[in-house]
């Protein structure tokens, strides 16, 4: 009953075209970057002659060659397209070699070198806090009187929570093609979640107006947030190179360059102080929350804001103070990644609740239960939004009972009593995720629907397809509104020349916003056709009269195409735009107060894990998920988002380790060293179900957003591992298990790897204090 992905048959037959697959003009050139190997330094000069002289090389570009603004930062203009004067991270693009062949460009790039005088580099969060090195001013959210209530609380704990970053590892790397047009124009094919931003930044880089630049994207081979702000970097470089040469220029980053040069999920560190009663109910909480933003602001402001707004997750915290530091480090500028700070905020509170439970010696689920938001009381978030649609108590109890949490808790305890080597752990964690861009103005969308005389139609909307099934859902909506078979509706590449000023396809909002905008366009055309019938035949027709590719006019049923042709002849416009803006939301981003979210999406997961006390290896044994997508637009696609999001979260929290060396160079920059989950890691026993209650808010067909929330279900996986660790003698109490829970981290949390040095810890990047002294070096080989 769920329609397959609109491109499924193209995917499986290799016929779906990605940007790298597009046939290009014969004289297309190819660009390849030279990157800095130094984390921080003064760029004293570039030795580019050897590269210029290399075979097939046409051009070498640096910052000086950008005709307009040397920036691809969308919010704050602090992201140079090419390093200029100062180098801010190891992996930063310094120059672009342009050649007839891609391989020639890559090889020539290695012939160049840079003279960089190193400057002191700040590489991790602790060092940045100590130096008060921030990309944006810190923010503070306070409710009630946390200091006094902490002092008064019956019990009190403090501790730290650390978690690593994550590479997006979209299977299709960053790629853009710039094609010069007449009269100063530029068209780009870009693998991007945000064509409009690419358009505006390319225009600025070229020093032309926005109307001179157009950007298209048919599909991405995965995005996950990594193609929200990052694609502009290579799109700008390609456009500048294309302008200079007058020829098309394509840049496709190879995997290593992609991982070295582009931003990732923020790693976070939190220090907490919590007061609670004997049941584990939180009285007051104070948290220092710090994110590693890298060298520039990028999206770190809204990412950190969302982390603050999800530190409560599903729990009422009566008195709370959160200080949010946005740390500037000499590492790649971290960016959007599915969840956008939400997962990191939730990780903090879930860790705190787990700590409270272990301190009290009770089941963590009991502590989670007593802290859940209430219904009609205890229901105001720290940022002042009332939780109006709290279905979580019902959802959580349904999951706990259907998956027999209590019985399995006993079975796990019995196992751990009996088994010396392999320990088991169990955890249930909930998710409450706010839906809408916190920046209110982004919550708008447009669509363009054109009906042709044969009754088929072409649909464009502002959203982009990255695999999430957005086009499948939006196409369904239009076909349903006009009562035509899906095959009559075709979605073409997202294109800034068809729908302008679009928001990024991000914040899980794709179908909420674009589905509504497309519905609006479809209804406009349907009403236009109805008005035509009314005038011509004197018959009122309604939505239900458009069905099955036919239109019921009084007693007559005629083919939809016949009505369309008649309307055409009567000179009725058969194209319409649609528009939507999310109602009810408002947000004071300085005070962090308001109603940033139209509604919340909920879910919960139970994970059972096993860990090996000899090696620290872990395995997820069983998974039960109950997740809320409102009234699903497409159950199979929604379940796909839930399972895929969960697994991506599992990767973040267990096996994916970004290892930066003491010079600030990322050493895990390819799948040989950076390990995302494989098929074997999917739990052999898994039940994933939809909660199925319609959204009380008037969203598209009462559905809910689904892109990001399920990622956070994976927190249950980390806590299941932590639960198993806590069953070992060395891990008893509050095990110090940081994410990712790679085998070494697990073994260490069991107290079995005691003599490890901190700087070589699995979280060397966030936990260590690696700030190398500046040494005088003048020449560096380029990567």
């Amino acid at each position: 009953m769920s329609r397959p992905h609109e491109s499924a048959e193209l995917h499986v037959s290799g016929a779906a075209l990605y940007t790298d697959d597009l046939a290009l003009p014969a004289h297309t050139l190819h660009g390849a970057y030279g990157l800095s190997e130094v984390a921080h330094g003064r760029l004293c000069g570039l030795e580019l002659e050897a590269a210029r002289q290399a075979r097939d090389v046409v051009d070498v570009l640096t910052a000086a060659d950008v005709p307009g603004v040397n920036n691809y930062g969308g919010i704050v203009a602090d992201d140079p397209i090419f390093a200029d004067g100062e180098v801010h991270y190891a992996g930063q693009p310094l120059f672009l070699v342009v050649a007839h062949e891609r391989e020639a460009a890559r090889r020539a790039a290695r012939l160049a070198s840079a003279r960089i005088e190193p400057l002191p580099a700040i590489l991790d969060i602790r060092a940045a806090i100590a130096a008060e090195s921030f990309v944006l001013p810190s923010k503070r959210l306070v409710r009630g009187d946390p200091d006094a209530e902490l002092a008064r609380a019956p019990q009190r704990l403090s501790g730290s929570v650390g978690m690593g970053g994550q590479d997006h590892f979209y299977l299709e790397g960053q790629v853009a093609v710039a094609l010069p047009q007449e009269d100063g124009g530029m068209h780009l094919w870009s693998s991007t979640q945000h064509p409009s931003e690419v358009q505006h930044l390319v225009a600025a880089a070229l020093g032309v107006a926005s109307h001179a630049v157009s950007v298209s994207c048919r599909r991405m081979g995965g995005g996950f947030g990594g193609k929200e702000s990052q694609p502009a970097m290579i799109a700008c470089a390609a456009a500048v190179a294309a302008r200079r040469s007058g020829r098309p220029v394509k840049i496709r980053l190879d995997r290593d360059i992609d991982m070295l040069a582009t931003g990732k999920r923020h790693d976070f560190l939190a220090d907490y102080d919590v007061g609670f009663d004997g049941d584990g109910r939180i009285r007051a909480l104070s948290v220092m929350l710090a994110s590693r933003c890298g060298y520039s602001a990028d999206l770190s402001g809204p990412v950190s804001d969302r982390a603050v707004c999800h530190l409560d997750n599903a729990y009422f915290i009566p008195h709370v103070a959160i200080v949010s530091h946005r740390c500037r480090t000499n590492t790649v500028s971290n960016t959007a990644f599915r969840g956008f700070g939400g997962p990191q905020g939730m990780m903090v509170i879930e860790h705190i609740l787990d700590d409270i439970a272990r301190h009290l010696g009770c089941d963590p689920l009991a502590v989670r239960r007593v802290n859940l938001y209430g219904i009609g009381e205890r229901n105001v978030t720290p940022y002042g939004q009332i939780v109006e649609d709290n279905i979580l108590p019902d959802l959580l109890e349904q999951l706990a009972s259907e998956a027999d949490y209590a019985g399995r808790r006993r079975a796990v305890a019995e196992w751990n009593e009996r088994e010396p080597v392999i320990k088991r752990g169990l955890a249930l964690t909930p998710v409450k995720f706010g839906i809408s861009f916190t920046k209110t103005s982004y919550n708008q969308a447009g669509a363009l629907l054109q009906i042709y005389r044969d009754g088929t139609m072409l649909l464009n909307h502002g959203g982009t397809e990255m695999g999430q099934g957005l086009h499948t859902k939006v196409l369904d909506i239009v076909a349903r509104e006009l009562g035509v078979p899906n095959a009559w509706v075709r979605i073409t590449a997202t294109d800034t020349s068809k729908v302008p000023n679009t928001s990024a396809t991000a914040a899980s909002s794709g179908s909420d916003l674009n589905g509504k905008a497309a519905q609006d366009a479809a209804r406009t055309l349907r009403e236009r056709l109805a008005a035509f019938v009314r005038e011509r035949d004197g018959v009122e027709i309604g939505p239900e009269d458009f069905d099955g590719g036919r239109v019921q006019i009084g007693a007559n049923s005629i083919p939809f195409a016949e009505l369309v042709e008649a309307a055409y002849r009567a000179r009725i416009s058969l194209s319409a735009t649609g528009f939507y803006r999310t109602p009810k939301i408002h947000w004071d981003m300085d005070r962090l107060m308001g109603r940033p979210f139209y509604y919340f999406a909920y879910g919960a997961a139970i994970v059972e894990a096993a860990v090996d006390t000899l090696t620290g290896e872990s395995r997820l044994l069983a998974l039960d998920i109950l997740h809320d997508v409102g009234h699903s637009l497409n159950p199979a696609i929604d379940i796909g988002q839930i399972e895929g999001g969960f697994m991506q979260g599992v990767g973040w929290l267990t096996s994916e380790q970004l290892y930066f060396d003491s010079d600030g160079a990322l050493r895990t920059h390819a799948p040989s060293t950076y390990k995302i989950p494989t098929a074997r890691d999917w739990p052999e026993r898994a039940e994933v179900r939809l909660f199925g209650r319609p959204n009380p808010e008037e969203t598209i067909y009462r559905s809910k957003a689904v892109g990001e929330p399920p990622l956070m279900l994976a927190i249950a996986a980390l806590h299941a591992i932590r639960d198993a660790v806590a069953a070992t003698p060395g891990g008893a109490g509050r095990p110090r298990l940081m994410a990712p829970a790679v085998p070494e981290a697990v073994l260490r949390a069991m107290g079995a790897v005691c003599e490890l040095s901190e700087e070589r810890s699995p979280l060397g990047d966030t936990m260590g204090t690696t700030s190398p002294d500046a040494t005088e070096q003048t020449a560096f080989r380029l990567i």
Partner: protein
Amino acid sequence: MGSRDDCIRFLLDGEVVEVSGLPATTTVLDWLRDHAGRTGTKEGCAEGDCGACTVLLGEYQGGNAPLRYRTFNSCIRFLPTIDGCELVTVESLVDDGVLHPAQRALVAEHGSQCGFCTPGFVMSLAGLYLEQPAPDREQVVRAIAGNLCRCTGYRPIIDAGLAMGGLEPAKTWHPERVDTPARRAALAKLVRRRTLELPDLVAPRSLDELASWRQAEPDAQLLAGGTDLGLEVTKALRNLPKLIYTGQVPELHVLETAAAGLRIGAAVPLADAWAAIVDAFPGFEEVADRFASPPVCHSGTLGGNVANGSPIGDCMPVLLALDARVELRRGASVRELSLADFYLDYRRTAMAADEFLVAITIPGAQGCWHYAGYKLGKRWDQDISAVCAGFAIQVDAKVIVAARLGFGGMAGIPARAPAAEAALIGATVEGASFEVAADALASDFEPIDDLRASASYRLISAGNLLRRFGLALTSEEQRKPLSVWEVTP
């Protein structure tokens, strides 16, 4: 059609493709995408780790032997190495507009989201289908171990693998339909009568021919499966010296199993070599399973892994435990060397510049031996190990009379652990003996910190692997689960 010396020929969609004038290091993937315009096959990593580039290679094995189709990573495989074979890509599977069952199942099970990894999964599932149209879950998971998907979480892809056998069978790419006389004849026609000799690559067709090329060109680089050397081109962008490809030498493909032991030719693919080793020594099944993905094991060779001499190659700890020997040839002379003496220093072996590896021999075992192999990484499938271990002990009347403990990841070369071995020899088979041996590892190794693990973790977990081995030996009757994979969900 006459066979030309400098022309690569292979079969694609029923047509013979002839390629000449390209560098020998042109990868199959680049040829497909840039030269043939077949963009269905994708580049995800250019190092054989993501599987988006997976295609099938059909091999005519002569005589009545069935045609064999196996997956490989086209991103790191050089085009001349598919000379004489059939290349099958995702586009090839569509039969008169009808999708292959692997493709149909992926559509029906919602197994594609962004779709970029999908062609690779299709090929891995189609390769499995050609062996076993109705596989079980373990076979499916194993077949797609080398394919990364970032969207789905894999569940619908596994389900597609389980469902494909129940669909209308494939017209062409079905185990009972693919091996036609016409296809055999087409492939038989590609069998060479003269050696392939490109300006930058030669593919000798006999051991003697290989020996003389090796002597004539000591600066040339031997190329076996290319699963490591390929990266020198795609990643390091190195200009390789002239290549001597070993894959066409029949003598190097010999795999002999006899009571006297195993003799594995240097060009035997890892998949076949491991199957033979595990068959003879089941204790090494875990390392064999985790060694690498099927596409890598189909291209890569045991000889390549051994000769490459990486300190983290996972064959060597096992081969050290098995007291393997290497057979080296230079010109007409052959010598044998213990594998333990083969590795001199980091990535340096006892092999002379004009010498080459002919075979690895594993002696048969007398008496009561116990074997185990373990690998530790951040992920079960397809990771480079932090520590890899191969253990063999001989027991007589509950006393350990011989011990060979091979380790990878613990030093600059794969190496035995003499102090730990000494601690075991003469000791009784009980936990305490392995405790002592584990502690002795500290005098055998000074491992390093790197991105895979810290020195401490390496040393402690290596000792714990010995403890695990001890536990596996001592509590046979009431054996407790000793691995997370022995737990039933």
